């Protein structure tokens, strides 16, 4: 093959790609869409993804497949989507970790604000402050005094570097201006086991993991970290009610790689908004102790804004705590 034929072939290929690109935007989707979840199957984020994917499949007329690419605190999966083809067939469903990774990982191979096209927010899962059954304090006020008085003698469990429970712990210590002894676990399951078994004092974890244990009286609950009380735990006060300046929700967002056709983003945004009003999604979310965001929040603009502000917020908190993951 001489040089001219190569050039010709290349330009024909390029023309073909450009052509198929326009077709794609109009007819999208014409093949199954992969949603990468950067955590292992069965976890809370994976559950959110599977519930949404199921409903979005029906709306888009193509299978939405969840693919778990776990590892390195969610940065492996996110990195994969950052460099994936921006054709709308590879998406990322990530949680609050999207905003902490740029600070936790000093050598992150992608930039969350540059390499992704946000589609919309999905939900913000509340967190709860819980402790072992026989832990001395009984109210949030008592808990705050106890932690201040006992400092490093209080053991605080968290689900590993960059996990929501670790982030909540940082905020708690920040708010109380004290240090506890933090004990990392390999995920929320083992951490909860040791709370129930009384091996460790307390944890702040997603309601997904704590609600059934709270209801069964296996752990002592102090507060929920959202502005309003939870539907399935109506007696549990909010942190604000108890006078604790700590608000955190594990927000989940849907992203496409940067450069994805705007028409495709709009289509996905509409499908997401529709999925969030689905009966099954709402009732399953309720069992997880959370609610879908409003249609106004399930937009690229709302997700972009939250992502940017959260990156700034966590930069301060994490740098103050001096915790890094690499």
């Amino acid at each position, binding site marked *: 093959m001489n040089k001219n034929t190569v050039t010709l072939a290349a330009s024909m290929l390029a023309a073909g790609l450009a052509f198929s690109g326009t077709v794609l935007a109009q007819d999208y989707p014409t093949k199954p869409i992969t949603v990468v979840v950067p955590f*292992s*199957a*069965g*976890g809370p984020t*994976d*559950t959110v993804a*599977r*519930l949404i*994917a*199921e409903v979005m499949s029906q709306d888009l007329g193509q299978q939405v*497949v*969840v*693919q*778990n*690419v*776990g*590892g*390195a*605190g969610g*940065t*492996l999966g996110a990195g*994969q989507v950052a460099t994936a083809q921006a054709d709308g067939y590879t998406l990322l469903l990530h949680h609050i970790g999207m905003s902490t990774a740029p600070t*936790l990982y000093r050598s992150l*191979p992608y930039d969350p604000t540059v390499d992704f096209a946000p589609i919309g927010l999905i939900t913000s899962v509340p967190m709860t402050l819980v402790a072992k059954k026989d832990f001395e304090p009984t109210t949030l006020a008592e808990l705050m005094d106890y932690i201040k008085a006992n400092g490093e*003698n209080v*053991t605080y469990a968290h689900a*590993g*570097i*960059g996990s929501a429970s670790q982030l909540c712990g940082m905020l708690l210590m920040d708010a109380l201006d004290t240090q506890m*002894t933090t*004990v*990392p*676990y*390999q*995920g929320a*399951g*083992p951490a*909860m*086991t*040791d709370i*129930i*078994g*009384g*091996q*460790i004092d307390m944890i702040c974890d997603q309601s*997904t993991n704590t*609600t*059934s*244990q709270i*209801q*069964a009286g*296996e752990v002592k609950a102090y507060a929920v970290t959202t502005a309003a009380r939870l539907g399935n735990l109506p007696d549990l006060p909010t942190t604000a009610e108890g006078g604790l300046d700590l608000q955190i929700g594990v927000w989940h967002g849907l992203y496409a790689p940067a450069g994805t056709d705007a028409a495709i983003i709009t289509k996905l945004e509409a499908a997401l908004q529709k999925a969030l009003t689905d009966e099954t999604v709402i*009732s*399953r979310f309720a*069992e*997880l102790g959370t609610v879908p965001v409003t249609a106004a929040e399930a937009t690229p603009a709302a997700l972009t804004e939250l992502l940017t502000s959260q990156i700034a917020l966590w930069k301060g908190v994490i740098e103050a705590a001096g*915790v*890094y*993951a*690499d």
Partner: protein
Amino acid sequence: MDMIASLSLGFSVALDPMNILYCFIGVLLGTLVGVLPGIGPTATIAMLLPITFSLSPAGALIMLAGIYYGAQYGGSTTAILINLPGESSSAVTAIDGYEMAKKGRAGPALATAALGSFFAGTVGTLLLAFFAPPLARAALNFGAPEYFALIVLGLLMSIALAHGSILKALGMIVLGLLLGMVGQDIYTGQPRFTMGVRELYSGLNFVSVAVGVFGVAEILRNLENEKGRDVMVKAVKNLWLTKDDFKRIIAPVLRGTALGSVLGILPGGGHILASFASYSAEKRLSKHPEEFGHGAIEGVAGPESANNAAAQTSFIPLMTLGIPAHPVMALMVGAFILQGITPGPNVINDQPALFWGIIASMWIGNVMLVLLNLPLIGLWVKLLSIPYRALFPAIVLFACIGCYSINQNIYDVYAIAFFGVLGYVLMRFGCEPAPLLLGFVLGPLLEEHLRRAMIISRGDATVFITRPISATLLGLAVLAVVIAVLPSIRRKRKEVFVEDD
């Protein structure tokens, strides 16, 4: 509700024709993925999660549970036939199971595995039915110091895994421990031995390492000498156990079941120890320890029973407290939640039909497995007559696909190649792969619990001897070492651990 009423409720759910069908699909799929190297129950359950959406909660969970314990049956098949364990538990089965196969006794080895597994599965299910809540409570007394002590005891006991030089076995355990360090330190987040490769942050994949050091290394060794290849079983003598075999496996099966049941309940990694512990126990208790590593049927019967008992009882923390004991159980939690049921202490009261239905289905599933697996033995053994040049490339290919499918991580495939070569080199130096794998799976647990115990005790190392359970376990570990170094016993030991190269 009393036990009879509960169980009859359970059986009424489990014997529903649709649920029987799901149970059968589950155990059949489990057996198949257990047999296929690389594709384990974790990957299979993860792939099938979306399908379970459309099933009833009982049907979905019965099927997923069936995949898990079905895979425990199937996993021993490739370990015995071609020295390719797909899970840490079957790595132990490979030691003597493969030796039996090489001697033409693949049939009895597979039958032993199936019968032992059935017995253990039945006992495990009964324990789950009758004593689940109190057992789960008791297991919660195990904190970090207790797990640390348990793993130390396990590591010291399992030097018995080696049938060659003890020094080399120790070396392999240490190498395994080091390999287990690869990845992100869970306490500080620091990457260790990752050489800047982000794909290694989660550590090396167990299946890749196992397929490499066992399977690929064995293939390389067989390529050495075209004529002297002993991988193809000479003549398959018989498929069934002799009367003598039956006599020899009864005690190991009982002991393995007891050991596995106890270890399986511990959510912090007890199930991993089950088969290793059973093997060590059998070797120590045997009147013919020299047979171990050369095709002792007890070395298959004990670990296989222990493994299945543990697989069954590892459902106890999940079903009664909502605590997942290992990754497969974490997936089951996801399946519960997708079905709109949050696993936790209330499931047993709020969803009695589901709870007892799953338990009853486990016994039915175990019956199906033994009925399914015994006739399959003939078929599996026939697999060995497939020409080597066709069978082994296919197996390596399956293993690569399987490993890749779990995390879509290409380094898991590179690891197979790397550990294949490493395993071959080690084999040439007379080092055995089983202790290496033991160190590899227990190393991270050992470190995790040691450091956690020290953090919680705020640096006070006496915590290991002031807590009664941990002190007892460490005492047993010391005893194991003392016995090993006592001169009189050492002489006897010399006869046992002859350098065989």
